[in-house]
């Protein structure tokens, strides 16, 4: 992007010339956008959260500001990057819902595997973008 200002015109407005190369249409603009996306992902990789809800009426379920509405939270697991894990599973009459616990555990395993793969892809992408190949 080049910025030009008329000479001797006092308060002349600044003219901005958008170079296609520097804009999103160009390679540097696209690479910068991809870098920014990867950086945001790295910020989000600090912990992994899996929440399991139960709903009696699925048609009443919706999401508002990232929160699931219309369903009750029944299991929650948070795994920190360094491995610390918090798991909350409520019991009902001294029992936990085995079926629910099973699928929640399966999802935690899936999410951890996906997270590992994503970290590999992100590290590789960052390295390749950094070295240009």
């Amino acid at each position: 992007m080049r910025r030009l200002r008329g000479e001797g015109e006092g308060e002349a407005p600044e003219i901005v010339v958008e170079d296609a190369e520097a804009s999103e249409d160009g390679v540097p603009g696209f690479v910068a956008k991809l870098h920014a996306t990867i950086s945001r992902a790295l910020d989000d990789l600090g912990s992994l959260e899996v929440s399991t809800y139960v709903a009696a009426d699925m048609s009443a379920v919706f999401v508002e500001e990232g929160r699931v509405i219309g369903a009750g939270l029944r299991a929650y697991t948070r795994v920190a990057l360094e491995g610390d894990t918090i798991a909350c599973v409520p019991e009902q009459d001294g029992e936990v819902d085995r079926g629910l616990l099973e699928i929640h555990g399966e999802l935690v395993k899936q999410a951890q595997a996906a997270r590992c793969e994503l970290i590999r892809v992100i590290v590789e992408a960052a390295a390749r973008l950094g070295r240009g190949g």
Partner: protein
Amino acid sequence: MSGLAERVHAIVDALAGDAVGDDERLAALARLLAQARGEVDLEFGVGGDEGPLARMGREWSEFRARALGELEARCWVGDGRLRTRVGWTGDLQLVLGPGVGADERASHVRSLRAQFERQARRLEVLTAVAVAARRVAGLIAGPGAAMVSALPVAFACVREAHARGEGGGVPWE
């Protein structure tokens, strides 16, 4: 998707070294590159349709907008009694309705795995385009060159590399 980067490099190497031989698809990429360099007139399709470079530019724009948007977006996997809201870094919100059986659960877990794979693949493809575009920009630099065409040409190279490795289809599905 493993090996995509290597296949893209091989294709760009062939274009850089003018070593397309009798490979028709590489020859088409070489023509696209020549158009981006401004060495040949832009080809137009039948009845004044857009030419190959313009078409690739449009397809790249559509892909870029969709892939970048979908990369970070949370999405729902599944419907009916079993749904999971998936964040692209792996966070999950599962909603379980009444009466879900073991088969349904297993099938849902497979769908989630496929969604994770798609998300990782999108990032790999976008990275492959960015890296290839830098090399392509070096190849098309010069008087009369359309530098903004580096990304569409790189995208065409990545699609070709994907087709060679996966036997066709589109690289982000």
